[in-house]
Every structure is written in C-alpha cells, then in structure tokens.
C-alpha cells in the first residue's frame, strides 16, 4: 500500500507583519503514504498549525505546491477546497470544537450530512464507529454533557466518519490529562490499524511522539528531522 496521500514541494508561508514579516513555514517538502501514523513535533511557534492548515487548504501557501492524492490543491478555489476537505480530509482540533447545539451523534455525522448521505446510513455508520471507540450510549448527549476525553473522541469520530484519505489533528491531546490523552491516542492507533486511517498529528508532548510510527521534527518552520520509529509494525518511511 504505497499510495501517496499528501505531498508538498518547497512550501512557504510568510505572514506580512510589522516590523518584520513572519516566516511561519520555510521550505517544507514532505510526503505521506496511505496508512501512515505520523507525528509532527516541535516547540510552540515552530509552524505546526500552519503546516496542517496549509495541507487542509484552510491557509494558502506563499510559495510551493501541495498535492492531495493526485490533485494539486494550490490552484483550487474556496469552493473546490471545501469539496476537497469534505471528501478527502478530516480535522481534529486541540480545543475539540464540537458544535454545541448538536448531539454527539449529530456532530459525528456532520460531514455525512454535508454530503447528503441518507439519515439511516449516517446513523448506522456513527453507531458502528461509536462502538469501536467506546462512545456507545452517548449518542444523544450534547457536548456540554461530555467529558473532555469523550468530546475529543466525538471529534475524532467526526473526522474519520467520511473515510477521508488523511486526518489532520492539531495537538489533539493537549487539552487532555495524560491518561485521557493516552486513551485518545489508542483510539487513533486502532483506527489507523483496523480501518487504515492515515493520521498526521502535531504535538509537543514527548509521550505522544513516542507512539508515532514516524516523527517529523519542525524547528522554525523547517523540517529538522523525519524518522521512522519501529513500533507495532508501522509503515516506516525514511528520508
């Protein structure tokens, strides 16, 4: 299964700012294959969020090119980018960011709703997934009635329910305590292992980095190292 899900070429992002423009991302070139479980590590301000936003088409690069699968996304319109995200990319955020008026089930099925999947199928898929990640029985709860760990699991469910080519998770465990964070990571690993979901997640927590099958170190917007970590039969990739 050597299928490239994302590839970048000399990616730059410069924020025009006084007195001096901020070079948040400086010449990042990377490639991720289907089924990988990749961590992007780096201190705060190293450009992790910006890279993830660039890959997800939420931010446009100053220079460089991005391919998601076969498609080069740098030239796409906002509408086309929205379509691409809907079909190919899942997002998980540090702050959970569930929609507060929706129940856990409605949050998880949201992208299916946007795609126009019939209710019956939506519900079946969410229930199956909830059972797999330990959320069964919580379908009708609003986010306010869920713990942080549960909310983030719903967020992961929301990201993977549409079977995207790539899930981008920006410090998904940063708002969780150690045990809950570890449990969440386990859920992500299981989805990677059993459902073949490709994950790229950022973190600055060493315990989280350890669990990745591949670790990219970002420093001042550049890739400092990119190494495969031989754990659990992961799909190694060396540069």
């Amino acid at each position, binding site marked *: 299964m050597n299928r490239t899900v994302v590839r970048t070429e000399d990616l730059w992002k410069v924020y025009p700012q006084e007195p001096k423009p901020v070079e948040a991302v400086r010449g990042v070139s990377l490639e991720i294959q289907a089924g990988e479980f990749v961590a992007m590590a780096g201190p705060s301000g190293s450009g992790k969020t910006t890279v993830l936003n660039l890959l997800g088409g*939420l931010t446009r690069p100053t220079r460089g090119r991005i391919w998601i699968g076969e498609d080069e996304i740098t030239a796409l319109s906002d*509408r086309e980018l929205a379509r691409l995200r809907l079909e190919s990319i899942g997002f998980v955020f540090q702050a959970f960011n569930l*929609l*507060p008026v929706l129940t856990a089930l409605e949050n998880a099925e949201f992208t299916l709703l946007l795609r126009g999947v019939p209710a019956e199928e939506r519900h079946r898929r969410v229930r199956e997934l909830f059972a797999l990640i330990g959320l069964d029985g919580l379908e009708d709860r609003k986010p306010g009635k869920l713990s942080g760990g549960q909310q983030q699991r719903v967020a992961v469910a929301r990201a993977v329910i549409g079977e995207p080519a790539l899930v981008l998770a920006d410090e998904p465990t940063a708002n969780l305590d150690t045990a809950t964070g570890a449990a969440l990571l386990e859920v992500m690993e299981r989805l990677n292992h059993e459902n073949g979901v490709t994950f790229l997640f950022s973190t600055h927590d060493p315990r989280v980095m350890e669990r990745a099958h591949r670790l990219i170190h970002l420093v001042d917007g550049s890739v400092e190292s990119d190494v495969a970590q031989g754990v659990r039969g992961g799909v190694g990739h060396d540069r």
Partner: protein
Amino acid sequence: MTDSSIWWRIAWRNLWRNRRRTAITASALAFGFFVSVFMIGVADGIVDSMVEDGTRIVTGQIQVHDPGYRPERSLHSTLGGRDGVDVSAFLDRIGEVGGVTGAAPRVYGGGLLSSGEETVAAGFMGVDPLLEPGVSGILAAVTEGRAPRPGAREVAIGSEMARKLGVGAGAELVLVVPAADGSMGNDLYTVSGVFRTGLPGLDAFQAVVPIDVFQDLLALEPNRIHEIGIDLRSASAARDVATEMEVVLSSLGVEVAVEPWTVFRRELYEYVSMASAANSIIVFIVFAMAIFGVANTMLMATYERRREFAVVRALGGTPGSVARTVVFEGIVLGVVSLIAGALITAPVMMWVHAHPIDLSGFTDEIRAAGSVMRPLIQVAYSVKGPLISSVALLLTSLFAALYPAFRAVRVPPADALAGR
C-alpha cells in the same frame, strides 16, 4: 440536500442559545407587527367611515344620470330626455343588481328661499320621502321637526340656513325656482324640519322637498328625474357594481351614465387613495426601524459563533452552507416573531373592533375631503393589513440576516480557529 429539516432544527436550536436576546428581538418584531396591523386597521377604519359618511349623508354610492347631465347639471337633462323614463322600472332593475341595498329618484333645482325679511340662495333636492332614507341620511339628519311628506308643500332646510333665515319648523317660506318651461315657479312652503349633517355646504345651502310637488313646480312630468341615487352594501364594491349595473340598464333601451362614488366624489377618492398609500409608509417605517435592531443582534450572535463557522468550513462546509445556517436562523426568528405577533395582535384588534375608542371628550368632529369623521378610533378588519404586515415581518427578518450571513461567510477559518 437529502433532508433539509436538520438545518431548520439547527437554526431553531441556535436561535434559543441566547434566550434573552432572542426573546427581546422576537418581541420587538412582534410589537412591530402589532403596530403595523393596528395602524392599518385604524387607517382603514377612518377611510371606511369617511367613505360611508361621505357617501351616505347625501350622494349615495352610485348615481345614474342622463349622459349629458354632468357637469352642467342642466334642468333639462333628465333621464330618458323629454319623454323621461318609467322610473319604477328603472328602480326595479337596479334593485336586482347584486350588492344594492337601496335606490331613490331625485330632482334638482336652484333658486331662492325667502322668509319675508331674509332671502337666501338654495339648492333644492326633490326626494321621495319613502325611498330616500334607503339611500342617504339627509332626512334622518332632521333634528328639529320632521321630514317633508309626499305630496305636501313642505321643505326641510339646513340648520345654518334656518339660522340665517331666522326660522324654525312650522315657519312659512316662499320658494322661487326657474322652471323647465322658462317660467318662474314660486309657491309657499312650510318648514317641516331642520337638519344638521355637520357638512357646512349642506347645512347652509341645501333644502329638501318632496319630489312630486317639486316636479310640478319645475314643470317636469313625473317620469322626468335627474338622478337615481343608489346605496350599496359595501362602498368598496362601487366600481364593480356600477359596471354590472351599466350592462343591466342598457337593456332598458335608454342611454344612461352609471357612476360610482370614486368618480363623482373624486376628491374623497383621492384622499382615500392617499390614505392607503400612507399604510405602506406605516409598514415601511415600522419595519425599517426593526431591521437594524434585528440585524444588529444577529450580527452579535454570528460574531460569537465565528469559531463554529470556521469549524464548519474546515469540515468541508461551503461558504453557502455557512450562509444558510444564518439565513435559516433569520427565517425561523421571523416565523417565531410572527406567531407571537399574531397572538398579541388578534385579541387587541378584536377588542377595539368591538369597543371603538371614543375620543369625543377630547375633540370635535373632524372634517376632511367633504366628509365628517366621527371622533372614534375604530379598527376595520381586512386581510390586507395582516397580510402586508406578515410579509413585511418575514422580509425584515430575512433581510436582517443577509448582512450577518455575509459576514459569517467572510470569517477566515484559520484565524477564527486560532482565536485571532
């Protein structure tokens, strides 16, 4: 989308996230609806009573003349010309037309009335004392004495004329009119009563006499009349009824002019049209004020939800789907406000309709456009008022949502997610 109901449910839930704010906004819209419906009801009430009063006091709501009668009002221009018409056949035909509640023949002439010391110019109206009350209120306006009797040389005069002549009921007056045969008709008449309509022109110059003795005085045969005055169930139907009546009367083989009050009381009609135009201005002002308040609260709500819009965009929602959540919320707000508005408006309208608010303690009768307004606030029911107001309310909430929707679409997802 396969099921749009979920988007409405989301709009509904979003609407109630800030109950207080939504309650205030919805109340403002509901109150605007009430003001709009009530004021249109009052304006329509005024217009209705102006038209009723303006046409019921003397003219009637449809008039039938010889085509040459207006505008000169020549004594010779009688219905059917020199030969006249079979008046009762005419009245019968007219009575068959739908919406007609009364019809009465009239003869007009101008001349002098003299009490000995005083002489005044007068417009004389010969009426059938039995039929006229079914058309106009002139005989019912007699406050002193009584109406003239058929076949009697009696006259009812206006209160102002009575004052000028210095006479009251029972006095004798000399009546002088130029007759149709070129002679001067004159005779002695008894004042049977004095009427007071409140309209200065009538009270100062009008005199009412029985049609038969007046025709005799004018040297007109009994089948020669100047006008048939007609009363309708509803003044607003006058134009349609007149059109139908024209067709019916043409079968009698006499050429006639059938005119609704909108023609022969042109100034009243123009006033009424102006008042209807004022209705739209009321609605416009009420909701123009509301739209800014609604847009402002919706803008606040969308600003608070910037991050959620960013999340929707990140998940693959199009700008359009973000705009839709805001617009749907505006529409739901409109519907909620409309229901609330209807619930407060209906009972108030029903109550005021049943119990007109009497202002006679504060003001006298109000005169405008040749009509008398009673100092009463009464509301007329109409489909139009609530309909216009409902449409205006829904459009208001829809338009109020457009700018916030536009702003929501413009939220840059990456910045909003970072809390920037």
